[in-house]
C-alpha cells in the first residue's frame, strides 16, 4: 500500500513515511488476525445438527482475559505509535530550523502569491519579488515559508515533500522544508476555498545549486554578490 | 390529564424533572460555548474593558435585581403549589411574568440607548459578543415569560398541572443563573 505514496523528496518525508509504514504493519496484522478469526469462527461454528452452542458469558475475569489481553496489546501498540510519532511531529511541526532562505506564500482565491525577499533577505523592501504560483528553491537547503491568506482558509500542500499546512487568514503560520531532489513538484491547495478550489495550484521548482544561482542572477541582476553568499 | 399509557411503578422522581435537567445540561453547553469563546477572545486582545465601560452598570444592576426578584417570586409560586394555594400560585406567577417583562423592557431601553450612541452589533468584537449573548439570553427570558403565561392561564382552571410550575421554575432559574454570569462578564470587568 505504501507504494501509492508520491515519491518523497524532503528531509523529513522519510520520518512521516516511516510512521505510515509502522501503522500500516500494525494495522495490517490486526486486520488479518481479526478478519481471520471472524471467518474461522463463522466456518467452525456454523450451525450443525446435534451440536449446540457453548454457554459462556465472558463476564468473569478468567473468560474476559480473552478480550482484555488483546486490548492491552492494542494499547501497547498505540503507545509505540504515539512515541514514535511524537518525534516525527516535533521534527516537522515543532520548531522551525533557522535558515537564511525565506519566502512568503500568500493564499488567495485562487492563487498562491509567492514573495521572495530579494538580496537583502528582508520582506517588505523594494527588492522583493512576487511571482504567482511559482516557488523556486535550491536543493538541500532549509527553506522557511511564512504562510498568509488574503481571504479564506487555504492549505499549502506539497505531496512530494509530505508537507501540509492550513493557512488561517489573520494569522501568520510558519512552515519549513528541505527538498532533497531537484525537480518540479505540484503545489495544490488542499482546503476547500471556494468555486475555484479545484485547480488552485502552483509549482515548486527545486533547482540544483548552480541552476538556482542562475535563477537568482536573472531575477536580481544588480546584486549578485549579496545573494551569492546566501546560496553557499 | 388522563395518561392512557403509563408505567405501573411509581418512579422515584418526576419524569419531567429529569427531562428538564437534561435540557438544561444542553443549555449549559450552548451558553458555555458562547461564554468560553467570549473569555478566550477577550483575553486574547486588549481594549475590551474600555468598550465595556460604555455600558451602564446602574441599569444593568437594576435589571439584575429585577431578574433575581423574579426568581424569588417564581420559587414562591412553587411553594404555593406545595400548599395547594391556587391564588398564591396565580399571584406569584403574575409577579414573575411582570418582572420578566420589566427585564425585557429595561433591556430594550438599554439596547436603544447603546444603538443611539453608535454602538452597533458590528462595531467591534466586544459588541459582537455583547449583542449576541444578551440577545440570546433575552430570547430565553421571552420563552420563559410565555411558558409562565401559559401556566398562569392554566392555573385558573385548577392546579392539576401544577407540577409544571416546578419545571418552568427550573428553566426560569437557569436563565437567571446565566444572567448572574453575563452581568460581571459584560458589565463589571
Amino acid at each position, binding site marked *: 500500500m505504501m507504494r501509492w505514496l508520491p515519491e518523497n523528496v524532503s528531509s523529513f518525508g522519510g520520518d512521516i513515511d516511516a510512521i*505510515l509504514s509502522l501503522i500500516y504493519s500494525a*494495522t495490517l496484522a490486526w*486486520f488479518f488476525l481479526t478478519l481471520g*478469526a*471472524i471467518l474461522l*469462527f*463463522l466456518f467452525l461454528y456454523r450451525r450443525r445438527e446435534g451440536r*449446540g*452452542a457453548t*454457554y459462556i458469558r*465472558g463476564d468473569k475475569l478468567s473468560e474476559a482475559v480473552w*478480550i482484555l489481553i488483546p486490548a492491552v496489546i492494542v494499547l501497547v501498540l*498505540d503507545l509505540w505509535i*504515539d512515541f514514535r*510519532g*511524537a518525534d516525527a*511531529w516535533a521534527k516537522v*511541526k515543532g520548531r522551525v530550523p533557522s535558515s537564511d532562505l525565506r519566502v512568503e506564500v500568500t493564499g488567495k482565491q485562487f492563487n498562491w502569491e509567492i514573495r521572495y525577499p530579494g538580496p537583502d533577505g528582508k520582506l517588505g523592501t523594494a527588492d522583493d519579488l512576487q511571482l504567482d504560483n511559482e516557488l523556486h528553491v535550491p536543493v538541500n537547503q532549509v527553506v522557511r515559508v511564512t504562510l498568509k491568506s488574503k481571504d*479564506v*482558509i487555504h492549505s499549502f500542500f506539497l*505531496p512530494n515533500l*509530505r508537507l*501540509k499546512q492550513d493557512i*488561517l487568514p*489573520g494569522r501568520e503560520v510558519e512552515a519549513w522544508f528541505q527538498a532533497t531532489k531537484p525537480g518540479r*513538484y505540484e503545489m*495544490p491547495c488542499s482546503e*476547500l476555498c*471556494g*468555486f*475555484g*478550489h*479545484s*485547480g488552485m495550484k502552483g509549482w515548486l521548482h527545486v533547482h540544483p545549486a548552480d541552476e538556482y544561482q542562475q535563477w537568482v542572477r536573472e531575477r536580481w541582476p544588480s546584486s549578485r554578490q549579496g545573494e551569492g553568499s546566501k546560496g553557499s | *390529564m388522563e395518561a*392512557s*399509557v*403509563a408505567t*405501573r*411503578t*411509581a418512579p*422515584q422522581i418526576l*419524569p*419531567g424533572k*429529569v*427531562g428538564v435537567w*437534561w*435540557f438544561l*445540561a*444542553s443549555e449549559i*453547553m450552548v451558553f458555555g460555548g458562547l461564554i468560553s*469563546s467570549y473569555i*478566550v*477572545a477577550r483575553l486574547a486582545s486588549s481594549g475590551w474593558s474600555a468598550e465595556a465601560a460604555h455600558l451602564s452598570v446602574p441599569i444593568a444592576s437594576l435589571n439584575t435585581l429585577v431578574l433575581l426578584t423574579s426568581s424569588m417570586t417564581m420559587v414562591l409560586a412553587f411553594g404555593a403549589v406545595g400548599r395547594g394555594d391556587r391564588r398564591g400560585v396565580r399571584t406569584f406567577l403574575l409577579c414573575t411574568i411582570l418582572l420578566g417583562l420589566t427585564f425585557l423592557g429595561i433591556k430594550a431601553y438599554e439596547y436603544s440607548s447603546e444603538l443611539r450612541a453608535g454602538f452597533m*452589533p458590528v462595531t467591534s*468584537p466586544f459588541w*459582537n459578543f455583547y*449583542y449576541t449573548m444578551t440577545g440570546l439570553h433575552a430570547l430565553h427570558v421571552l420563552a420563559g415569560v410565555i411558558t409562565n403565561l401559559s401556566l398562569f392561564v392554566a392555573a385558573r382552571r385548577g392546579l392539576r*398541572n401544577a*407540577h409544571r410550575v416546578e419545571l418552568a421554575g427550573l428553566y426560569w432559574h437557569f436563565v437567571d443563573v446565566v444572567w448572574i454570569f453575563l452581568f460581571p462578564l459584560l458589565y463589571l470587568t
Partner: protein
Amino acid sequence: MAESAVAAGAGEVVHVHPEELGFWRTYVFSTDHKMIGKQYLFLGLFMAVVGGLLAYAIRWQLAFPDTEVPGWGFVGPEDYNALVTMHGTTMVFFVAMPILLGAFGNFLIPLMIGARDMAFPRLNRLSFWTLLGGSLVLLSSFFVPGGAASAGWTGYAPLSARPIYTGVNWGLNLWLLAHAIEFASFLMGGVNFLTTVMIMRAPGMTFFRLPILIWQLLTAAVVFLLSVGPLIAGAIMLLMDRIAGTSFFVPEGGGDPLLWQHLFWFFGHPEVYVVLLPAVGLAAEALPVFCRKPLFGYRWIIYSTLTTAILSFIVWAHHMFVSGMDPRLAMPFSFTTILISVPFAIMVFAMIATLWGGSIRFTTPMLFAVGFLSMFIVGGLTGIFNGSAPANIHVHATYFVVGHFHYTLLSGVLFGGLAGIYFWFPKMFGRMLNETLGKIHFWLTLITFNATFFPMHLLGLGGMMRRIANPMQYEFLQPLQPLNVFITVSAIGLLLAQLPFLINLVWSLAAGRPAEANPWEAATLEWSAPSPPPHGNWGEAIPVVYRGPYEYSPPEVAQDWLPQDRALAARPG
C-alpha cells in the same frame, strides 16, 4: 386527551385505552413511539435516496470530469462544492441520525425496557415533525437563488461567514437553519430517550439487564446532548456573521476563524460516536441471537462504551493537526485519539468472541451484523493513520480520510442499520422480509462497498485532495485516474445494489409472510410483545424481568433461549 402525555400521574395503573384512533392520529400525528420510529425510518430512507443521488453526481464528475452527468446535467465547480456539502450534511444529520437514533431508538427503547411508550410521547411527536421541517428546509435550499450551501459540511469560516466568498447567500443560511432545527429535534429526542430509560424500566429491569443497544443509545444521547451546545453557539455566531455582519470568525473585524473549527469539532467528533455507538449496538443485538450464545463480556462492552463517551470529549482537535493550531496541542490530542482504539478493540473482540463456540445461523440480519463488524474493523484501523499527528500531515484532507469515515459511518448506517432493519422488520411491520433477496442484497452491498471505499485509501496516500471537482487538473493525480473511474463504477453498483432491498421492503410490507411474535427465538423483551405490538405494547400486564438480555443456550432449560421475562419457577427446565 386520547394519547398519553407527560406521565403526570406517576404511579397510577392505567389501562391501554380501547378507543380506535383515526387515520391521521394513527399514521401521521401519532404519539405512539413505534409509529414515530417508523416515520423516522422512512424519512431517513428517503433522505438516503437524496444523499445517494448526490453521491452519484459527485462520483460521475470525478471519474469523467466536465462531462454531463447522465440524468443530472452538467456539474460546474460551484455545483460540485454544493454537492459535496449537501451530501455530507444529508447523510450525517438526516440519514444516519434519523435511522440509527430516531428509528431504532424510538421503536426499541420502550419495547426493550418494558415500557408502554416514551416518557414524553407528545414531545416525541414534536421531535419527529421538527426533523421533518428541518429536512424540508435543507431540501429547499437547493432551489433558492445562488444554490445550496457550498462551504463543505464542516462549514469552515471565513469561507462560510461571508456570502461573497462562496457566492451562496440564502442557501447557506438555510443550511444553518436546517442544522438548528435538526439539533432541536434530536435534543428533544435525546431528553426523551434518557428520561425514558432512567425512570420507565419494567420491574426487574436493572441497568445491568438492559440490552447493549439501550446502553449504546443512552450513551449516544448523552454525548449528543453535551457536545452539541458549543456548535449551536458557534452556529448562532456564524449566522450573526452572515446576516448581521458581525465578525466572530472574520479576521478583518477582529474575529478568529480557528474558533469555529474548535466549536465545530468539539461537537463534530463526538457526533461520530453518536452515530457509531447505536450501530455497534444493533450488530451486538443480532449476534447473540444468531449465535445462540450470550453476548461475550456484556459488562466489558458497557464499560468500553462509557470510556469511549468520556474520551470522545477530549479528542476533537485531531481534526485540526494541520489547521494552524498550536502544534504543542497535537501530541496530547493524538494520544487521546489513538487511545480510543482500546475501548473499541474491547467491543470488537467481545463481538468476535461471541462467535466462538456458537451455533451460527446465517440469516440476513446476521450477515449484515458480521458485515458491520468486519467493515468497522477496517474503519477503526485506518483511523489510526488519521489519529497519528505526523501521519495525519500527509493523509489529512485527502481521500484517505474519505475512505476512512465511509468505512466507519457508512458501515454503521449500511451494515449496522440494515442488520437492524432485517432483524426488527418482523416486529415493526408484522411481516418477514424475503431472505433470498436479503442475501443477494448483502453480498452485492458487501462487494460494491469495498470496491468503492477501499481504493479511496490508495488515492489518499497518492495525495488526492478531498473536495476537488476535477482530479485531471493535477499532473500528479492523472496517473491515479483509472482508480477514480473504478470507484465510480463501484459506487454506482453500490447504489444499484440497494434496489433488491427496496423491492424487498415494498413487496414484504404488502405481501410478506406474516411474522409470529418471536420469529428469531430471541430473549430480549420486545419479542414478548405481539408482532407488530399494539398501542401500549403489552396487554394488561407489563412483563417482569428476571435476568439479563442474552440468555442463549443456558444450562437450566432445554430450549436454547431463556426470555428475560420468563419466571423459571413457573416453568422448570
